[in-house]
């Protein structure tokens, strides 16, 4: 962005002060900016190098190189303008789509949250439990030739020392410095100060000092670097065999390729990991006919909802625009302001207000407008659909009103006059002249409005949360669910969040919206040709 500015200033400068060397200052600024960018990139790359993130490092390096080439080489003028935009496009559009696509082919979700290594360490860590009734040892972290160790004072006052490799050994009391009850230093060991401990927290947290040569006796572990307890591992990971063993029951859990540890008998450990599962998520609706049927119902309703919302709000908006555009109408400004009001509130707030208005017993609509009738606006499947549409049209017509008003006012008055002179009546003028001209300018907006309503999450979710619920389907699918709320519910609500399935469903939505938009835009072009 800044480069664009400097380009502009360069142009002005060369024109006004022709004597000064034209590009020296600009060049200096350019080099300065590039230097900053490169410095940042080098810093980022060095961080990535130490983390071992080679893929990202490579991408950053290539991008930086590209940026330098584009801005340093003469020529490539379009590139200078396009590069920032292309980079943003790659990061915020292409990457998002590619990443969603990748997720759709994985089992990412509850219980499959990270990598296999993470799952193994989580299982081991969670099942490392304090031996019941084991005493509290006061510990001091020390370092010896064998690495990090614990200098532990038992409740009886015995002082022991050990490391990950060497089990705890009693120390000669004479070789130990005490601070109160706690041994704080021993000969041959360097005591770690608090700040050293803080520097090496991961190491300290991972330190397990065995009580004896027999691992079954347990080990000392500290979580706060001051107190240690005797722990035992219930689950042990066998690296060679790739299996997890429950030491209390000797059950062996193996990785059978399903992204989890399981026994042959089908017993599964809760924590699994992410794997690529192929097209499974896309096939899910087909393999579960009930869910597939519900999904089809939701898809049909989504189309109906989007088309009806756009159609009804467009005609309502158009009607109002025509009415309020008529010079014979009095106080037009007041009505116009009133018509735009729903547009001024955040839509989710309006939806919540409507939720209250439509309450069966206490809502304003039933209480006042229908004389205390108990009409179940939000809990009856068809009435709920009607209510969602009603609220959405209420939310959407001001936009259509504004659009139509603008389009109407841009149609030259002469056309109407000429038609009237030719003997056309008001309806004929509207049908034959105003409406087609209006459609040319509003059709693209109608299409984008369709795409918006196709994914209109706010209205549905705030008003009914997709309910009332469909019966006979295990998944949480409701009668007013749109595809997008269904995706949201699959991904973030209920017992098992399933990001993989949600991503697959959202890709299906993307395909539908893209196809509909493509076809519609082609139709629009035909409309323009007419014109």
């Amino acid at each position: 962005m800044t480069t664009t500015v400097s380009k502009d200033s360069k142009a002005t400068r060369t024109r006004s002060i022709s004597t000064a060397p034209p590009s020296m200052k600009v060049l200096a600024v350019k080099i300065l900016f590039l230097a900053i960018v490169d410095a940042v990139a080098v810093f980022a790359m060095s961080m990535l190098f130490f983390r071992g993130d080679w893929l990202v490092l490579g991408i950053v390096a290539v991008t930086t190189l590209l940026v330098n080439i584009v801005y340093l080489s003469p020529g490539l003028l379009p590139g200078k303008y396009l590069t920032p935009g292309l980079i943003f496009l790659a990061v915020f559009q292409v990457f998002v789509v590619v990443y969603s696509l990748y997720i759709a082919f994985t089992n990412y979700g509850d219980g499959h949250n990270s990598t296999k290594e993470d799952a193994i360490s989580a299982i081991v860590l969670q099942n490392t439990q304090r031996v019941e009734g084991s005493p509290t040892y006061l510990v001091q972290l020390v370092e010896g030739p064998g690495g990090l160790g614990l200098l532990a004072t038992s409740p009886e006052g015995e002082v022991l020392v050990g490391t990950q490799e060497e089990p705890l050994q009693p120390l000669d009391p004479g070789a130990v410095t005490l601070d109160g009850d706690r041994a704080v230093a021993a000969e041959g060991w360097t005591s770690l100060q608090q700040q050293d401990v803080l520097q090496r927290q991961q190491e300290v947290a991972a330190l397990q000092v065995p009580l004896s040569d027999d691992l079954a006796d347990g080990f000392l572990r500290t979580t706060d670097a001051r107190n240690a307890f005797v722990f035992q591992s219930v689950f042990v990971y066998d690296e060679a065999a790739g299996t997890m063993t429950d030491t209390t029951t000797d059950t062996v859990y193996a990785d059978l390729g399903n992204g989890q540890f399981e026994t042959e008998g089908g017993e599964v450990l809760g924590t699994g990991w992410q794997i690529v599962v192929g097209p499974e998520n896309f096939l899910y609706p087909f393999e579960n006919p009930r869910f597939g049927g519900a999904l089809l119902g939701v898809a049909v309703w989504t189309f109906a909802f989007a088309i009806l919302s756009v159609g009804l709000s467009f005609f309502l908006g158009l009607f109002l625009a025509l009415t309020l555009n008529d010079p014979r109408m009095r106080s037009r400004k007041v009505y116009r302001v009133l018509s735009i009001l729903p547009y001024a509130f955040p839509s989710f707030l309006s939806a919540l207000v409507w939720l209250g208005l439509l309450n069966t017993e206490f809502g304003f609509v039933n209480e006042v407008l229908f004389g205390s009738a108990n009409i179940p606006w939000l809990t009856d499947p068809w009435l709920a659909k009607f209510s969602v549409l009603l609220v959405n049209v209420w939310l959407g017509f001001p936009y259509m009103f504004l659009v139509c008003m603008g389009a109407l006012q841009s149609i030259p008055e002469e056309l109407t006059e000429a038609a009237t002179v030719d003997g056309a009546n008001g309806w004929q003028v509207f049908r034959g002249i105003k409406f087609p001209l209006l459609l040319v300018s509003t059709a693209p907006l109608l299409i984008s409005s369709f795409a918006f309503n196709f994914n209109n999450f706010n209205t549905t979710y705030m008003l009914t949360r997709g309910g009332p619920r469909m019966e006979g389907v295990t998944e949480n699918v409701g009668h007013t669910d749109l595809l997008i709320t269904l995706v949201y519910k699959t991904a973030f609500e209920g017992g098992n969040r399933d990001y993989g399935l949600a991503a697959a469903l959202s890709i299906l939505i993307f395909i539908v919206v893209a196809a509909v938009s493509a076809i519609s835009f082609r139709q629009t072009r035909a409309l323009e040709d007419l014109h």
Partner: protein
Amino acid sequence: MKQSSLMKVAGVGALALSLAACSGGGTPAPAPSQSESAAPQGGGELVIWMDQNRADALTDVVATFEEETGTTVEVVVQDFDSIDENLTTQAPSGEGPDVIVGAHDWIGKLAQNGVIAPVELGDTAGDFQEIAVNAMTFEGSTYGVPVSIENIALVRNTDLAPEAPATWDELISTGQAAVDAGSAEFPLLVGIDPNNADPYHLYPLQASFGGPVFGINEDGSYNADDLQLGNEGNVAFAQALGQWSAEGIINPNISQDIAKEQFASGASPYTITGPWNLSAFQEAGVNYAVSEIPSAGGEPATPFVGVQGFMVSAYANNPIVASQFLTEYIAGEEAQTAIYETGQRAPALTTAFEAAQSNEDVAAFGEVGAAGVPMPNIPEMGLLWEDWGVAEGQIIAQQGGDPATVWTAMADKIQSSLDG
């Protein structure tokens, strides 16, 4: 720490590239923390995710901790209800916090996703209310330091119902009498979600019919393999619920907000609610008293007890400091009292709990909670809420036919998703 390299592509890529695009318009390094220079050198940086209330309450405790340990604490304020989800998705990328505040019933799911690590309370475990420590325990490990306990109870308008009802029938008859006399509009107010009923608010009544959700293991934890939701007591509750709905005692159109509003305006002698609504009643000038919910089915009407506490991320960069912060500061009376004072929920630390007894409301809610049961924290619990609530909603709205049939179908469906 393992990185999800694809996520890194997004993060670092965006950073470096946006800089490139803006030709150096921004600074890449995170803003240096202000207290770094003043603190004793060497301390790590502790990142804590908290909601606004607790962040406000703990300002002093955090400042003391920073001063005494030389650690820099970065408090990131988040919406309480989204903390678990954010932790689940962000922790594996290495971008998560060291410590979060959370609800105990998240623990099963968070542990299943491997994003929280056990915290060893050591001998201090005995300093807390027993129910609080039990709630924070999952599969034998304790996952955090509990700070506050909350539960629902019966709140009554003492002008309309001077005495606490001893039995459910007494509650109903007093309520009905008030309605008949014209001094009240509703015999009882229980807030319900229009789409989803509210299993949480109805649970005490359900429990009083001998209807738990899961069986209990020997060590007191919930047994996911033993779903009790469809048992005899629960079916009896379903029938009673249908009957209460027919009699207008439980009304499907009274949402939580309406229940609060109506009780505050004196429209009912009774409501079943938690301490979070008391301030609204005080503001409205209602004279109220808190007591236990009378049994409707013969057994004690035990509410679910929710416990909030501080947990350590399994991906914490500073596990030792995090542990020290929890066991030495959050478990201390100062922190527990501070959180209690802003939230009005009973503290988990016994000494702080006893000190808080001077507040009548806290004492009354605490007494009811002491007899309650912790909300199950096993991950399987997540499969229940939705179906359970929908079935209750149908029964209350008198849809779907016989309450017992609706209920049994729901229990069967949950059983099959548990098996599946």
